[in-house]
């Protein structure tokens, strides 16, 4: 079951285990320059607002209502990253693992394959949460992604249009599978306890032009990790999935009656203000190789040249960034009593 709470998708499997709670939210962020240099991780600038599609069904295209799910607003050429976390045992330092498959326009963000329910192990077409704390884009090669950047459907920029040749779906698709209960319990029992237990925008004319998809933007250093538990750890008989529609921010107020979010700062302005960028590596995990089909996509910058269209604004290289290294939770040093 999936609930929407505080702009976060709360995906629960109470019949598998009480700890089996996966959280997914969508973070606003800077768009990194699309200049073929690789950049560190940009910051999270807060969650995108998210609404139930059915609450605004009279103002949305019929296809959106049929797909169900939720909608969020993005400006053209605005970037996004997806944030994951999961529930944990109250007495152990372990969080419930999930296999999470993410697609944009029904194109898998890890493999570049077209959408299919279910998990594939070779090549691995899913992320493992919480080992993978976030996803910022399409996995184009080992340790490198191309940032998720919103572009209007039909203009030819999105990964979906470049791979399938059609502007049919747009948005983001997600399906979540919990770890099998017995595998989780084994993990919990192997883990050191934290505490010793003995101690469209008009009513009359809803139309598809409001729809946005995700296109490959600038290059970013981010690893997508191999499944360390193995394919048979996942309970593939249980899953929850959600279609996340992306509505052009210009139509957000008309469709939802809620105020339009402010535009995020540019990467250059953010860096000029001496604000930090981030790097995250977990040396205990192996990164996946990128997908050839995704590596072959034109980035927005390259596509605009091919289409002889106006290049992206605010795309100048950012020469020096203040970068903060973030450790995976297993590497964090615990402060004791002293």
């Amino acid at each position: 079951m999936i609930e929407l709470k505080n702009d976060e998708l709360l995906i629960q499997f109470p019949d598998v285990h009480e700890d089996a709670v996966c959280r997914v939210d969508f973070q606003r962020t800077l768009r990194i320059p699309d200049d073929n240099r690789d950049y560190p991780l940009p910051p999270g600038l807060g969650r995108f607002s998210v609404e139930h599609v059915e609450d605004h069904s009279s103002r949305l295209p019929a296809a959106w209502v049929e797909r169900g799910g939720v909608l969020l607003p993005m400006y053209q050429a605005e970037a996004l990253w997806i944030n994951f976390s999961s529930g944990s045992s109250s007495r152990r330092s372990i969080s419930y693992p999930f296999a999470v498959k993410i697609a944009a326009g029904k194109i898998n963000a890890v493999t570049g394959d077209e959408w299919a329910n279910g998990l594939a192990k070779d090549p691995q077409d899913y992320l493992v949460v919480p080992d993978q704390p976030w996803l910022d884009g399409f996995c184009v090669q080992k340790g490198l992604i191309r940032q998720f950047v919103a572009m209007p459907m039909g203009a030819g920029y999105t990964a979906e249009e470049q791979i399938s040749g059609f502007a049919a779906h747009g948005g983001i698709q997600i399906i979540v599978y919990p770890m099998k209960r017995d595998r989780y319990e084994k993990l919990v029992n192997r883990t050191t306890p934290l505490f010793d237990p003995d101690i469209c925008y008009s009513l009359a004319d809803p139309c598809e032009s409001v729809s946005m998809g995700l296109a490959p933007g600038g290059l970013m250093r981010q690893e997508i990790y191999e499944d360390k538990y193995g394919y048979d750890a996942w309970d593939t008989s249980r899953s929850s999935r959600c279609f996340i529609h992306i509505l052009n921010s210009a139509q957000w107020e008309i469709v939802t009656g809620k105020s339009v979010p402010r535009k995020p700062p540019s990467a250059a302005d953010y860096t000029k203000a001496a604000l930090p960028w981030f790097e995250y590596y977990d040396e205990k995990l192996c990164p996946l190789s990128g997908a050839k089909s995704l590596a072959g996509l034109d980035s927005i910058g390259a596509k605009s040249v091919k289409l002889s269209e106006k290049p992206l604004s605010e795309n100048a290289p950012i020469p020096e960034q203040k970068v903060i290294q973030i450790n995976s939770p297993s590497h964090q040093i615990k402060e004791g009593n002293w």
Partner: protein
Amino acid sequence: MLHFGEHIRQAREALQEQDRTFSLRQVAARVGIEPAYLSKIERGIFQPPSEDVIVKLAGVLGEDKDVLLALAGKLSSDLQQIIIQRPKLFAELLRQLREVPDYAILRVVREVRDGQW
């Protein structure tokens, strides 16, 4: 069920074992009340504080605000508003849910609808 003050004291002292900044004085300062007032609340000498203070305490101690409000015999103002807007409907709903087990209540929460795609 624990009384409000007793629950707060146990939660705070459990945190203090791991982190000394959860002393009575420092928690009171973060919540914006006098340490003596917090001490009397914890010992049950004073009644539970206002909703605002309970919500701040929940934030500082990492507790669920609705659970703390319930222990204090209160209902958060946003829930009151929800009930006041449709009192008959929600009163009936809550009475019907009184005996329903937790897992069944979880099934009646509003889910994100999945359609054809």
